[in-house]
């Protein structure tokens, strides 16, 4: 058990270092940091001096070590576009993205799991067929298209919900929350639904598949033979065993949510980290891109680590093949 933990930690550190290396290479070698930071009139001598002061003439290893050290403390330099510390920008935008992701993930689970259970239990009913058909559409429609359609219907035509922004937010220290105001809730619904839709369909199909699989097993047949009611069998036994791989998969999907958040935030102009990243890409704002990469990498690595440990801890038999369920 300990050996497993150590091995996974070692792999995690390796991945983080690789991510850091890529971010660092981005930072230093794509374009010239000096050119992006100073004006056009700065003399060559001044540039040379700046280069020396910033330590850009040191060897690769030293610069990389410095980058890692600074990164661990949250200092990622100044944004080219906004001339502010990147760390500060990220702290400002993080609450927005985290709240959105949280609401979307909850929505996906709360709707996806029951729908999955229903379609798993009542396979032939017309409602199941309908839900399955809808899920196919949910997987095929690009997220941004869903967002646009929702905006069109609810904001433009019906005018019920706002189509951009976060509504009014309340500051708690450095965290700005939109969830405590009615306005904030109205603003978060459409983006959260858009973000959740893909996850919802995925979770629904997964729960359904697992449910069908479990209901075929021997111990379920035995339980029925013993005369347990349908309800006891389905919910007492089958469901518990279905949920274990589902929860771990859902955890892995948190990574996907981050990626799709980028799209959703762009469609709804939601002021979160995703929108920040897109703007950075459009302006080739390398420090922001590098910082986002490291942050997201850290997030993924942590989640993967936790999920892997959960697998191993809960049931060593449950090695769900990642490719089979289409993650990544």
């Amino acid at each position, binding site marked *: 058990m300990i050996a497993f933990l150590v091995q996974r930690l070692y792999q995690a550190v390796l991945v983080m270092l690789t991510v850091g290396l890529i971010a660092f290479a981005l930072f230093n070698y794509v374009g010239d940091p000096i050119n992006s930071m100073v004006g056009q009139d700065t003399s060559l001598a001044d540039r040379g001096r700046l280069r020396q002061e910033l330590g850009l003439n040191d060897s690769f290893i030293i610069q990389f070590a410095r980058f890692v050290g600074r990164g661990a403390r949250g200092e990622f330099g100044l944004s080219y576009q906004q001339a502010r510390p990147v760390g500060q920008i990220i702290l400002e935008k993080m609450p927005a993205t985290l709240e959105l992701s949280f609401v979307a993930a909850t929505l996906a689970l709360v709707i996806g799991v029951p729908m999955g259970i229903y379609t798993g239990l009542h396979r032939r009913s017309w409602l199941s067929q309908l839900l399955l058909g809808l899920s196919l559409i949910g997987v095929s*429609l690009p997220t941004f298209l869903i967002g646009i359609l929702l905006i069109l219907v609810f904001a433009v035509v019906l005018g019920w919900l706002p189509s951009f922004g976060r509504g009014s937010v309340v500051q708690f220290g450095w965290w700005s929350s939109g969830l405590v105001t009615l306005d904030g809730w109205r603003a978060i619904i459409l983006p959260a639904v858009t973000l959740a839709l893909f996850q919802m369909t995925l979770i629904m199909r997964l729960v359904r598949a697992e449910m069908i699989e479990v209901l075929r097993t021997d111990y379920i047949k035995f339980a029925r033979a013993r005369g347990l009611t349908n309800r006891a069998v389905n919910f007492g036994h089958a469901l518990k065993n279905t949920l274990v791989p589902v929860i771990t998969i859902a955890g892995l999907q948190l990574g996907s949510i981050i990626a799709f958040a980028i799209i959703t935030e762009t469609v709804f102009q939601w002021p979160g980290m995703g929108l920040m990243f897109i703007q950075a*890409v459009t302006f080739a704002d390398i420090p922001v891109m590098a910082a986002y990469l490291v942050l997201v990498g850290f997030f993924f690595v942590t989640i993967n680590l936790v999920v892997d440990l959960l697998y191993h801890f809960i049931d060593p038999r449950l090695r769900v093949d990642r*490719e089979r369920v289409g993650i990544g």
Partner: protein
Amino acid sequence: MTVAAALVALVIIAGAVLAPWIAPHDPFDPASLSLLDASNPPAWLAGGDWSFPLGTDNQGRDILSAILYGSRLSLMVGFSAVLLALLLGVTLGLFAGWRGGLADTIIMRIADVKLSFPAILIALLIDGVARGVLPRDAQSEIAPYVLIAAIALSFWVQYARTVRASTLVERGKEYIQAARVIGVHPAKIVLGHLLPNVIGPVLVIATINLALAILTEATLSFLGVGLPPTQPSLGTLIRNGNDYLFSGDWWISIFPGVVLAALILSVNLLGDWLRDAFNPKLR
């Protein structure tokens, strides 16, 4: 159901391929555009004009023609990306599976690292880097190629893993061992004997991946980091139209959107059908 899907896909693909001949207007020739035609609604609504069946955008470009050319680009990028990912992934997979040892470990480690990141993020990164590195005026022309490369680089891992697994299995079989004993050159063994036997699942993955590639390209274009407005794909068209949703010119976004959705849906269905057809468990 699948027949309907195949039909829809075929119609769109045919339209895309024949675009230069059947499009009523050339939406990208500035000389043929007239601002007087701008913002026409679709022909069946008031104010519409049948020479612009699906309406025009804010600059007078015909939406139908734009959709035809746009699908052409979307499909081209999608196909090329899948092809590139396939070539890259299969090659690396064969190499890793055949050689084993250090090469195998390295390639698989890279694959693992890459697999923990979602495809869109990787494609965005590559695009951002390309933007920073390439000179500004070349960016429009190179954009399709950067996009193809970015999407391909995010998808190759699936192919590599599948091919590697199959290679490892086949490698132990007798016909391969026989070939080695006779002294056939390794390259010939791999290409001539191994490859035909591992290629099956790859084709199924490729079809399913095509839908994903088209979706990714559309998403990237919509975000503004894909194809530029001078050679718009369906995603770019939707992006352009997004600004006009609130002023009521809904057709600029919605029609490309419908076509895009239909395309992805039909390719998805075809991929599912193909996968089920190849699955020995269902026979």
